[in-house]
């Protein structure tokens, strides 16, 4: 039972982090190779506030998320007007810098030995509730002027500017929103595992999230959530924690990029009204494709 609770809690936290990457990479088309460091920022700041300064948990959450946004501003403000490659580089450098700071400020953060003794305030209900709430926020973002402007600038930045879109501002707002989400996920994480150390939040973690988003479908929120659950949790459930896991994910993504770049879900979004007919259409498609295979 507690195993199931832990799976669901981790899955929920994972989904919130991946939502951040969905915003940055899926909607705005940017690559933040240091996104995991925002999780570290949230976890460490909230952790230190509660353990060492005796702050109450809710206040610590608020301060941690605001700090995430401030760091997002520090990185984002000078960077969002640069080319995509440079954004990847700077966010990577930022991630490394944060880890370096965390490793070298032993007295405050515990350095490489990590921060332990964080009280376990994250309940499964908090995790699930947060996840649902965050999905709600992101859906609304997608179907608002912000989401649309993101899709426009991702598709053709020059044309987006030509119709009056302030591309830099939209990218920055998206990036800050994502930083807030990821920092919050970090808080939930730290207050569940009760121990955090800097090396968990490296660039490979950030890259894994990007892989998850592409697997599900870079334009599809449904796909991203689905992918976060499948790639994030299934291995745990099936006890398939083999060392080949990442290799398999990477291979799948390379296949997807080559043969179905839109990802498994493509452009599809879950819509309660069309759900029934969508499932029927899906079965029809599978049937007709298998007919072609058997007859052809």
């Amino acid at each position, binding site marked *: 039972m507690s195993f199931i609770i832990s799976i669901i809690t981790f899955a929920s936290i994972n989904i919130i982090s991946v939502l951040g990457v969905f915003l940055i990479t899926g909607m705005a088309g940017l690559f933040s190779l240091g996104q995991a460091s925002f999780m570290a920022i949230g976890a460490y700041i909230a952790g230190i506030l509660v353990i060492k300064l005796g702050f109450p948990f809710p206040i610590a959450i608020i301060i941690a998320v605001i700090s995430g946004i401030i760091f997002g501003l520090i990185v984002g403000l*000078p960077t969002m007007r640069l080319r*995509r490659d440079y954004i990847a580089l*700077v966010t990577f450098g930022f991630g490394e810098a944060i*880890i*370096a700071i965390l490793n*070298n400020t032993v007295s405050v953060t515990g350095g490489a030995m990590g921060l332990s003794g964080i009280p376990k305030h994250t309940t499964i209900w908090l995790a699930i509730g947060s996840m649902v709430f965050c999905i709600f926020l992101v859906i609304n973002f997608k179907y608002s002027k912000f989401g649309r402007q993101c899709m426009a600038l991702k598709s053709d930045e020059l044309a987006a500017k030509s119709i009056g879109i302030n591309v830099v501002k939209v990218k920055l707002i998206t990036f800050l929103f994502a930083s807030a989400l990821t920092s919050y996920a970090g808080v939930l994480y730290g207050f569940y595992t009760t121990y955090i150390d800097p090396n968990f939040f490296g660039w490979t973690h950030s890259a894994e999230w*990007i892989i998850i988003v592409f697997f599900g479908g870079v334009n599809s929120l449904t796909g991203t959530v689905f992918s976060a659950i499948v790639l994030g949790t299934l291995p745990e459930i099936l006890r398939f924690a083999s060392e080949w896991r990442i290799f398999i994910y990477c*291979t799948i993504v390379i296949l997807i*990029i080559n043969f179905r770049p839109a990802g498994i879900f493509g452009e599809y979004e879950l819509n309660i009204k069309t759900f029934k007919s969508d499932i029927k259409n899906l079965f029809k498609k599978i049937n007709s494709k298998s007919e072609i295979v058997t007859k052809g």
Partner: protein
Amino acid sequence: MSVQQIINGISIGSVYALIAVGFALVFNILKFSNFSHGGVLTVTAYIGFLISTKLNVNIWVTLILTAITGGILAVGIEYIAFRRLRKKKSPIIYYFISSITVGILLENLIVIFFSSNFYSYPRFFKKSIIQFGELNIATTDFMMLIIAIVALVALMSVIYKTKLGIAIRALSTDADTTSLMGVNVTIIIMVIFFVSGVLGGISGVFLGMNYTLYPQLGKLIVKGFIASVIGGLGNIFGALVGAILLGVLEVLLTSISFIGSGLAPVVIFVLTLIFLILRPQGIAGIIIHERA
């Protein structure tokens, strides 16, 4: 800052130069940052290690064999990760994700086969330090410097003095027109990747010699990237200059005691950021304009 330190900086810089140029070559042609190059560095570093220890050969053979392996690996990567995207004229974002994924895949392969143990290259030279008057330079550093210079000079002469070089330069300006002129674009691209892989292989061996072997070696691709950025993205001479500057800067930073190697990433991050704000077009002053 002493002359000794400057020399150390330059020799590290020459390794970064190899990385940066390998990186810049691909950027020139495909106009994106090939993050899989980091994976090539890591894999070739380990392969070089295997070659030198299992086959018990000297540094020259190691270098040549590893370089060729690197070239083949890079061509393989081009075929698997980028060929289809090029044919379908996919948006740049897919090249990014493909290259990052390949990079991670390669790094993971290394982790699987070598786990996180540290390995080190055998000693290649009897005399580990060469002396020039009062200045010392490690033999390995000296080798790296010479070989890097030779490799880069060879590359420059190919690019600027041969027909192949003209094709390459044409391709980097306008791929469609170049293919309409009868140049087999696919072959040229394969050649570019091969050369990039060869440079990667040489850098891999040097990195392996200089640092102990560990799977995250590929992270050093970022140095190459930074050097390219300082120099002006895609400009090969710029990448060279940028790399040397970076090497010298690093030696300087690590020698400042309160920064050390622990906080060096922070300073480099801040400096990169400031540099990009002040002069994003790099030293060579190139901004790639999007065609309207």
